[in-house]
Each structure stands twice: as structure tokens, then as C-alpha cells.
């Protein structure tokens, strides 16, 4: 920086931040967008390819109908207007990961236009408008081999169905950008069209950011930020760029329109090297694919098949099960959790107990394992059984949590685990008598204190008893037995 803050000649104009986001979403369809190859992640390089996705001479694309349906569903969920005529266009540019020298994308007739995403809020309602949502094919992937000082191409990813979702410049802060991405991701997860995993690249985000003097209707010069690998990185990159642009403008300089790369290690954005001047993609209608005419009835059918949105689900949980905002808010973060909750409710009507067990012990387990509920082999039946066993005193709360771990690890049912490992709660007074005698004998002082009226010391004795029974004693019964022994002699 040539000038530091507060240096003479600085202007102190207050700036407004203007952000627009471009999200690329890989669909989890069974096959690729224009050929029959499996749409998978992580296979050996160049093993999931065919003449079509390799762009071999003479091959031709055929649109995967389910990719089209997914795209329409997303566009509908984003409240877009669906274009009745859909056309693909070629976007021409050279890059080794692009097998045909052009990407089949959409240009003047995208699937959806003019939609919005509503950001949930307790206070003011915020809508981020969607400029367009279009369908295209993903490119392959370059793998740089430093050992041989060369680049290799893996075409497995080439032809993965991709949807580009572009907002209007409606976002006003890096924080809001982060919130938009979270809201969008949840919305997309409910549609079950993608695993939305930024690490695997199934969701990618580029950002455009510019500043303008507060109140100025004119947009400032924007920069485009790329290479962010998490929502957090998007926020950080935007914060960094917001600060850089503010300083630049306050120093009386102008912003250069450019693409900048986020450097995760150094936590800065840098101008992209060797970036050629504005590309001319020479878009023109893809002659290998006829335009598609979407029938209103087909769109209506898809609209009717849309699952409830996270927002709608939240409302429903509150009204149907009387959950509070906190509980419902947590459950809806994972649609599988909602389904699981409702499956449990069909087995057992103790709402609060089920919610507490899900939000508490179950989510502790999923978080500890960094897994989603659907990756664990846990049935609602087994989970409810477990809760019931705690409720009817067969096992203690503490043991219940251990049994849950074992169920998740082994998939065994709770009865077998409890009996095989001898975890059943000891509720038989005669079985507890001996342990109680031992505890009292070993803690004469405490017994005296209690007799002298220090009732609070009883908890220590209960704890000692539980310890000796490895948590299996029924704490309520231990409490009663201890009271009786101490006071009745």
C-alpha cells in the first residue's frame, strides 16, 4: 500500500458493498448429461469415459432427460420463470480439459430466469434475486505432475451435469453472501439433486464484488473472485477484497476489472496470472441438439413433485409436533434428520424425549464421526427402542448413550447389546444391598455429615454406588436405599 490509513489526501467516503454470486452445482444423476457414462466421483482417471464425453471426432450429444428434470426442479425451487423453449449453445474456448474445444451450455434461452432465494430472518425479510439458472456440461480436470513437469488430463468429470445459478448483485456483505450460500445449499439438498460438497467440487462458487458510494445507484467496477474451496473461504475472500477495494478507492485510485484468485494459504486475493483479455466465447446455438419445448403440463407435474422447502418444513414441524423454533431450526439443517424424527414419532409419541435424544446424543455421534445420519446404519425402530429402555428404567441414561454408540458401530439391536454386555440396570434392591453396605462402610464421614443434616452430601454416595456398579444401578433406587440405610440405621 502506498498510502496508509488517515494519510493526507484520503477520502473518507462511506462505501456500500455490492456482491453477486455464481454457483456451479453438479447434479447427482445416474449418468452424465450427454452420454450414458456413470456420473461418479473418485474413479481411476479416464475410466468413466466414452466417445461422447471424450469429444471424439464424429460423436454426438444426447440430452439426459433426468438432468433436464433436475434443472427444471432447481429453477422452480429458485422461483424462476421457466422458459418454454430451451436451447443449448456452444461456448467456444480452448483449454486441455475441454475435449471438444467448446462447452455445451446455455445462453439466450436458459432454463430459468428471474427467480429469488428468500433468506430466513426473524426481523427484515431479505430476497436475493436470481438472474438466471442454466444447464451445462462440466469439463475434465487437469492434474499437475510436478515430478514430470507436465499436466495430465482426467476426463472422468467431463460431461457431469452442471447447473449455473447466478444472482443479481443483491448481496450487501460477505456475511450475507455466506448466509445466502448456506440457505441455497439447504434448499438444494432438500431437492436431492446434488451432494453439494464443496470439497469434492460438487458445489463451486465464484463471486463478483464492487463498491459504490453509499446511496449511489450506479454500480462500481467489479472484480471476480475464484478458487474458494469452502463457504468460509468465500466469506474471507470477499472480506479481503472489500477491504482492498475500500483502501484503493479511498486512496483515490480506480479498481481494475479483473479476475482474482483466492490464495488459501496466504489468505489474500491476487490477480490471476496469464489471464487473457476478455474472452470472446462466440456463443451460437448448438446444432447437434434440437431446441426443447417444455410443456406447461410437464412443468406443472415437476412443480407438484417438489419436496417441501426447508422453510415450509420448519413451519410444519412447529405446528404438527409443537417443536420450538430452536428444535425445528436444528432438525431442518438435515432433511434426513427430519425424516428420522418423523419416523421415530410414528413409533413413539414422546416428542420432547425424541427431540432431545436426536439433538443431543445422536448429533454428538454424527458430529464426532463427521458423518451424515444417512451414512449411519441406524433405524428409527432401534433408536426408539433405546429411548424406551431408558425411559422404563431398564438402562440408565448414561448407559443409553453408550448403547447408541454400539448400535451405530455394529448395527446390532439394543436388546442384544444390553444382554450380551450385561448393561441392564440393576433395579433389584437385594442385588444393590451389598454394594450400598460397602459404600457406607467406606464413607463413614460422609454418612455422619448427612445424619447431621448435610443432605447435599448424599449425591456423592450415589455417585460412588454408580461407580461400583459401572453405571448399571438405577440411580433413583440407589438414592432411596441410601436414604433408608442412613436414616433408619
Amino acid at each position, binding site marked *: 500500500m502506498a498510502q496508509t490509513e488517515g494519510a493526507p489526501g484520503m477520502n473518507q467516503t462511506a462505501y456500500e458493498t455490492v456482491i453477486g454470486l455464481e454457483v456451479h452445482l453438479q447434479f447427482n444423476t445416474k449418468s452424465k448429461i450427454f452420454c450414458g457414462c456413470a456420473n461418479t466421483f473418485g474413479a481411476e482417471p479416464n475410466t468413466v469415459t466414452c*466417445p461422447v464425453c*471424450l*469429444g*471424439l*471426432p*464424429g*460423436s*454426438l*450429444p*444426447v*440430452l439426459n432427460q433426468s438432468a433436464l428434470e433436475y434443472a427444471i426442479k432447481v429453477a422452480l425451487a429458485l422461483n424462476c420463470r421457466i422458459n418454454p423453449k430451451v436451447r443449448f449453445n*456452444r461456448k*467456444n474456448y*480452448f483449454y*486441455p480439459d475441454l*475435449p*471438444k*474445444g*467448446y462447452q455445451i451450455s446455455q445462453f439466450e434461452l436458459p432454463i430459468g430466469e428471474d427467480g429469488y432465494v428468500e433468506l430466513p430472518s426473524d426481523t427484515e425479510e431479505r430476497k436475493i434475486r436470481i438472474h438466471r439458472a442454466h444447464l451445462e456440461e462440466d469439463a475434465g480436470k487437469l492434474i499437475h505432475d510436478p515430478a514430470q513437469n507436465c499436466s495430465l*488430463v482426467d476426463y472422468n468429470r467431463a460431461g457431469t451435469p452442471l447447473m449455473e445459478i447466478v444472482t443479481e448483485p443483491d448481496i450487501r456483505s460477505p456475511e450475507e453472501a455466506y448466509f445466502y450460500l448456506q440457505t441455497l445449499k439447504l434448499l438444494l439438498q432438500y431437492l436431492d439433486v446434488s451432494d453439494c460438497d464443496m470439497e469434492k467440487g460438487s458445489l463451486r462458487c465464484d463471486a463478483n464484488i464492487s463498491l459504490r458510494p453509499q446511496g449511489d445507484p450506479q454500480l462500481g467496477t467489479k472484480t471476480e473472485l475464484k478458487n474458494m474451496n469452502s463457504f468460509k473461504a468465500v466469506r474471507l475472500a470477499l472480506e479481503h477484497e472489500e477491504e482492498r477495494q475500500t483502501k484503493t478507492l479511498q486512496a483515490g485510485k480506480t479498481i481494475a476489472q479483473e479476475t482474482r484468485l483466492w490464495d488459501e494459504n496466504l489468505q489474500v486475493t491476487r490477480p490471476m496470472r*496469464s489471464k487473457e483479455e476478455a474472452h*470472446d466465447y*462466440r*456463443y*451460437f446455438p448448438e*446444432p*447437434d*441438439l*434440437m431446441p426443447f419445448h417444455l410443456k406447461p403440463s410437464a412443468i406443472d407435474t415437476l412443480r407438484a413433485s417438489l419436496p417441501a422447502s426447508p422453510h415450509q418444513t420448519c413451519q410444519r414441524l412447529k405446528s404438527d409436533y409443537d417443536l420450538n423454533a430452536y428444535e425445528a431450526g436444528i432438525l431442518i439443517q438435515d432433511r434426513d434428520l427430519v425424516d428420522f424424527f418423523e419416523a421415530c414419532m410414528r413409533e413413539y409419541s414422546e416428542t420432547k424425549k425424541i427431540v432431545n435424544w436426536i439433538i443431543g446424543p445422536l448429533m454428538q455421534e454424527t458430529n464426532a464421526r463427521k458423518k451424515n445420519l444417512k451414512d449411519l446404519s441406524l433405524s428409527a425402530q432401534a433408536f426408539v427402542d433405546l429411548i424406551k429402555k431408558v425411559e422404563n428404567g431398564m438402562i440408565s441414561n448414561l448407559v443409553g448413550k453408550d448403547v447408541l454408540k454400539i448400535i451405530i458401530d455394529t448395527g446390532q439391536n439394543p436388546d442384544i447389546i444390553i444382554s450380551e454386555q450385561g448393561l441392564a440396570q440393576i433395579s433389584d434392591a437385594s442385588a444393590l444391598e451389598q454394594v450400598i453396605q460397602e459404600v457406607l462402610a467406606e464413607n463413614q464421614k460422609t454418612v455422619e455429615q448427612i445424619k447431621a443434616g448435610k443432605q447435599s452430601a448424599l449425591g456423592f454416595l450415589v455417585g460412588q454406588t454408580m461407580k461400583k456398579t459401572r453405571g448399571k444401578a438405577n440411580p433413583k433406587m440407589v438414592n432411596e436405599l441410601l436414604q433408608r440405610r442412613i436414616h433408619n440405621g
Partner: protein
Amino acid sequence: MNLHHFTAHQALEKISTKQTSAKDILAALGKKIAETDSTINAYVRISETPVCPSSEASQKASQEASQKASPSQTNQLPYPVPIAIKDNICIRGHETTCSSRILKGFIAPYDATVVERLQKAGVPIHGQTNMDEFAFGSSTETSCYGPSRNPWNPDCVPGGSSGGSAAAVGAHEAIWALGSDTGGSIRQPASFCGVVGMKPTYGRVSRYGLLAFASSLDQIGPITKDVADAALLMNIIAGYDPRDSTSADIPVPDYTRSLIKDIKGLKIGIPKEYFMEGIDPEVNQAVQEALQILKNSGATIRDVSLPHTEYCVATYYIVATAEASSNLARYDGVQYGSRHYPAQPRRNALIDMYEETRTQGFGKEAKRRIMLGTYALSSGYYDAYYLRGQKVRTLIKSDFENVFCDCDALITPTSPTTAFRIGEKMNDPLAMYLSDILTISANLSGIPAISVPCGFSKAGLPIGLQIMTKAFDEETLFRVAYTYEQNTEWHKQKAPLA
């Protein structure tokens, strides 16, 4: 009669009566190619082991063939008659290069749909034929394998871009052949070589496996010794293909049923715009005589107008080059074909490789068309060129729709001239482009068209008659062509090199 002089239907008849076999015909063709192809240069690759259906399949094929009295009884009949195909149609395991240096060494890992269909019908593929590089040309002179020559006069071009296929059939080095037609590339060489060449309706024959020149114009079609063979070949190759989204899901009739020597009551239009200046008087004379024959056969002849004809060439060279510039982008040295690096690094390794590969790999005409097409699609020029071109194309298409409201077929010359001399137009691309002036409109409007021999110039060079009908009416096309052919002897003439 030598075996290589057979038409496909004659060969089939002899095979079914066990007077000859596919093997004998292949041997005769091999001998003939050895004798004359050093002059003609029709072939870029001769298959040592013809791409045949499995021996079991071919045995079954010939059994079935012999059981049938006539090949016209069903369109599922196997046809064990060897064929030559243009070097832009993929055959699994065989080099396919579009006669371009840039694709040298590209071995197709899959079969084109037409190749699959040929194999299913029992047709052995015995060679791949020369062509203008990427089908860019009307003379087969832009091939990296050197020009093919006209069997009627080796100093003349065979036409193009399917010049190898037309010369092979014209020289009787092939019984029948496949070509591809983007602006006349089947019909014009057929006309120059005195054979039959047919461009089907756009969407009638699958393009899967045809190396694309201009995707919205390209069609594969037959080049044969007579109309009956063209109908037979269409029975084999036509039909919907789920791998080609532009192929039409419309039932395919048995085209041999259209081989009727009767056109009584058919209305034939003569578009006046196709008989203007620039048409060689000898060509005009031959076409007028052909009209008389059609009239004598019972057709009504009437003058019609296709008012947007004058814009055809301009429209074509915008649309076709635009699509070609994009279709040829994949030839970048990354995955297949040839790759070159400059002797001295220039910018960076990747861009150097792209530039050097394409500089060395593409010929002059390919570069010219890539640049024209890139220009037509460039931002700022798109509306004035490509978009305008597409709008004019719609007008040209509706010209034909209007004319076919009260016309069954149109008759024109196939090319304004007979075959020109090798080298004559190589340095005058515009003169070369005008060689397609009469054939381009069928591609722009998607309709089927055929060229049949209709006479000879005083210099002894063949003249072609073009017939066009409305989209998917190949039946009327074959009927008119067959009736004309059966009333003449032109198709029976043999070239000096035959």
C-alpha cells in the same frame, strides 16, 4: 462382363444364384484398384482384411439372400456386396482422417451408425476414399493425400468433396460407395464422374460417427452406378438413431418400391433462378433434353421461382464456416491425431503447442474456413453475419415449402459446368465456391436431392441432372430419378478408365 462392372443389385442377383461371391467381387475390385488407382487416387486406405460381418453372420446373410427371389422384397435383406466409404466416417480400429494431416494416426475406437448398419446388412467395407480436407472443397484437391482424378479424363478433377467415392464408383474401382454432402459434396462429384449421388433429407441418416463439417447441413448418402443401387443403400443406412438427436424418428419406407418407371401426373417445377447466366450451354442443353424426356413420360412441367436463391451461397458460407470453426476446435493436439511444438518456444508451452499443431496440421482451405467462421461468430459481428444468415436460411427454406405446395419435384442442373481441370480453381476460392451454387440450397433447406447422369459434353465429360423433392419424400425423388434413368442410356456409359 467383369465382376467389378456389376452394380450392387446385379452382384446380389449373381451371389444369390451362386454365380459369384463377395470374395470374388473383392478380388476383382482389388485387381482393378491395383491397375488404375495409381492414376485415379480414389482410395486413401485399402483394407487388407475388409471390415466384414462375422463369418457366421455373412453365411447366414448369403443363405437368407439366396432364399429371397428379389432383394426388393424386404428392406432387411442382407447385402454381401463390398462398399467403399469416405474417409470421414468412423470404422472401429481403422484410421479415419478426413484426409487431413491433423488427424494422421487417429484410430477410431467406435463404429459410425452407418457402419454398424452396413455390417448388420452383411456389406463388407473394403476401402476408405479420398476427399477434400474436412470436406472443404469441390475438387478433392485439398486432400493431404493429393488430388483424386476424374475417370473420364485424369487431367480433370472428380469434383468434391466426396471426389474419391465418386471417382471410385465412376472408375468401377468400387461397386458402390458412401459419401457425405454438406453443400453438394455427394451430388457435384457424382455429376462430374457420371454416377448417381444422393443427399437424403436432413435427419434421415444418422450422423453419429461422421466427422462433422457443418452439423446442421451434413448428411451421409449413397454414390452408386444407378438409381436402384441408391435405393438399396438407403434401405440399409436410413432410419432413426437414438445417438443422433437430429435424426428423425419417422418410419423409413422400402425405397426399392419407389423404383417405378412411371411419373404420369407428377408436377415438375423448373426454378428459373437456376437457369441464369453462368450455366454452361452444354449443361443447359442436356438438362432441357432431360426435361423433354420427363415430359414425354407423363409429367407436367411448370416454371417456378425460388426468390431467395441469390443469397444461398453467401448464407451457406456463413452458416457452414461458423459451424465448422467450432467443430474443428477439438483438433488441438491434446487427445489424438498429430501434435507439434515450435522449434523455439514462443509464448507458453500450451499455446505454442496449440498454434504449431494447428498451423502444421490444417491445410490452407481449412484455415481459411476456420477464420471465416470464427469471424462470423465473433462478438460484434454475430448479428450481422451468423444471425442474419440463419434468418435468410429460414426464407430459403420457406421458398421451397411454397414451391412444393403445387410441385412434386424440382429439376435443375447439378453443377453449372462439367469437371474442370486440376489446378484451375485452386487459387480462386470464390470460383470454386460457385461450383456448389445449385446444390447448396438443398442443404440449407434440409430437403433430399439426387444427381443422375444426363449426358456428356463434347469433350466427353459427364453432365448431371439434379432432382429435388420436399423433406422426407425420397420416394418421389427415386421415382422421378428412376423413370428418367430407365428412359436413357447415360448410366450405362463406361469411363475410359473403368
